[in-house]
């Protein structure tokens, strides 16, 4: 039954490259195997990633390490409350000769070669900036200087911290929906990793740490093609299709699926969300995971593994429950997987 398909060997080579990529990034970011793996999945699913977590857990280090190992041009901006969309696109200044100049801003500077765009502290930027980002993420294109720019290999990585609320702007639902994953990062639990992070001087200087990584393990220009090949090679059986649709149904209408959470009125919990785009992203990412596992077909574990990161931020709760989101949504997702039968 296992017919040898053209391109299988190529996918196997790329799988090895992906695991090299993970181990290389893992050298710089210890104790974050899951985050590294999810970022790898996002890269091969061509999805944008939002990292969130405490201050100083290594969000920026992880993203910089990924950018280095991925190769290609990259740019980064820091979100501030006074940042405007134009700051991303162009940069005005007075040149030496005293005449004003307009130069391309961070997004356009590397023109269409841009492969990784960092947005640090994205929640500090204003909604105007978020809308620009929306188009950049959704269509990988931008209109500026009377022409359209295309960024075929662009991947947006953003991070935000959950500690402060002042002078921050919540991302609009439409922008959050464009992120493939929201990965929560915590300080590692493993005591050896903790000891290393605190006492090993290697981890104190991020710049030197990142310079030690082998650059460009993955050819960023070829990732798009591989991502397409993965999506076409990994098979989804009718059972898995039914499974995903049942999961979706149970997530949106938990009361009808018979899910009960303590202290929650299940009929009035979900306000909306879990968009078809979100589900499409889910299957996309699950296919990449199946490929990383060396399988040619999807299994429920693929869906379950990436589900929280892909789906949790797409579920919108009624306002009364929104404050308890951090406990309700993981509980709901766990209950959904404990309820929906597979196969």
């Amino acid at each position, binding site marked *: 039954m296992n017919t040898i398909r053209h391109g299988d060997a190529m996918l196997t080579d790329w799988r090895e490259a992906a695991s090299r990529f993970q181990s290389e990034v893992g050298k710089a970011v210890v104790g974050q195997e899951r985050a590294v793996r999810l970022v790898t999945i996002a890269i091969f699913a061509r999805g944008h990633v939002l990292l969130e977590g405490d201050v100083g857990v290594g969000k920026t280090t992880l993203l910089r390490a990924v950018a280095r190992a991925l190769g290609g041009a990259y740019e980064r901006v820091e979100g501030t409350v006074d940042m405007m969309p134009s700051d991303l696109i162009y940069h005005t200044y007075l040149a030496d000769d005293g005449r004003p100049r307009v130069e391309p801003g961070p997004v356009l500077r590397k023109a269409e070669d841009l492969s990784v765009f960092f947005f640090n502290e994205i929640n500090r930027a204003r909604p105007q900036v978020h809308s620009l980002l929306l188009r950049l993420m959704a269509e990988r294109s931008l209109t500026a200087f009377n022409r359209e720019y295309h960024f075929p290999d662009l991947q947006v990585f953003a991070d935000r911290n959950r500690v402060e609320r002042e002078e921050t702007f919540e991302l609009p639902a439409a922008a959050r929906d464009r992120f493939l994953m929201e990965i929560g990062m915590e300080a590692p639990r493993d005591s050896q990793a903790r000891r290393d992070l605190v006492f090993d001087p290697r981890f104190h200087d991020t710049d030197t740490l990142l310079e030690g990584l082998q650059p460009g393990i993955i050819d960023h220009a070829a990732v798009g093609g591989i991502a397409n090949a993965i999506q076409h090679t990994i098979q989804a059986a009718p059972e898995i299709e039914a499974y995903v649709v049942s999961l979706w149904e149970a997530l949106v209408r938990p009361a009808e699926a018979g899910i009960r959470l303590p202290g929650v009125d299940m009929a009035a919990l979900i306000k909306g969300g879990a968009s078809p785009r979100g589900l499409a992203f889910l299957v996309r990412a699950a296919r990449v995971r199946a490929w990383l596992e060396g399988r040619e077909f999807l*299994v429920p574990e693929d869906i379950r593994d990436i589900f929280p990161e892909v789906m949790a931020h797409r579920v919108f709760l009624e306002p009364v429950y929104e404050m308890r989101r951090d406990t309700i949504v993981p509980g709901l997702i766990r209950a959904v997987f404990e309820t929906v039968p597979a196969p």
Partner: protein
Amino acid sequence: MRRLAHFAILAALLLVALPGAALAQVRSVEIRAPRAFGYFVGDLLRVQVDVLVDEGFAVQAASLPQPGPVTYWLDLRSITTESTAQGDARRIRLNLIYQSFYAALDARALEIPAFTLTVANERPEGATTAKAQVPAWSINVSPLREVQPPSREDPLDYMRPDGRAKALDIEPPLRWAGTFAVLALLALVLLARDRAWAPFGRRRGRSFAGVRRTLRRLAARPDQDAAYREALIALHRGLDETDGRRVLADDLPAFLERHPGFRGQEVALARFFTASRRAFFGRETAAARSQWPFAEAEAAAKNLAAAERTARG
């Protein structure tokens, strides 16, 4: 023994007359029997023979009469000996039980044959033996009935009527039978509960018993691929029900951690999950079936049902 002594001493013979030093070692021989007359066919004669010998002498077992026929009308049924000290002498007592089969037509005396005992005194310088003669003695036997009974019309009248037997009370056996029937029924109910038979078919903690029944039913299906897939689904539901959540292939180690009773089935469960993956998600039902046939699925269900019984008691 004491009772015997109450009867008259029927025969006593003192053997002291014979000359010679050797014989002095046997001091006397006495025979006691309850009575000397009134024996019918089949009666038992309990005879006691006391032989008084010098201290240090013991009867030689080979010289004792052997149980068995003695004459054509007399059997020796059993013989036992005991030896007790009596003053400076030793008393050897033989307890003999004879049975008479003499069908007498008139009252007559019959002679019980004599026998000789050897007693020996084993000493380091040599053994001294002596013989004790138990003399013949006689008993009187009588017929059971007259020789010529008056003639009767009906030959059956010669027979004596049967004795009146007491009617057996069937109440206690019936009560016992009832008790045991109830106990048996109770045991059957407990067994049915343990095995999750009919009325307990859907009881908690016996998921695999139901799976096993489902698989047995599916085995008869004509479409084997469909039956196989349904069997896999049944096993999945059994695992889900046991764990109270959906168990996927990757959860097997955690499942075994939570239910250590199933640890013995780890290999079978791993093969089941592999087959299930191939059948449902790899769309290779036939390949999965050849790799993990239906018979193995049935065996796995049987073992899982057994494991679930021992796991939860």
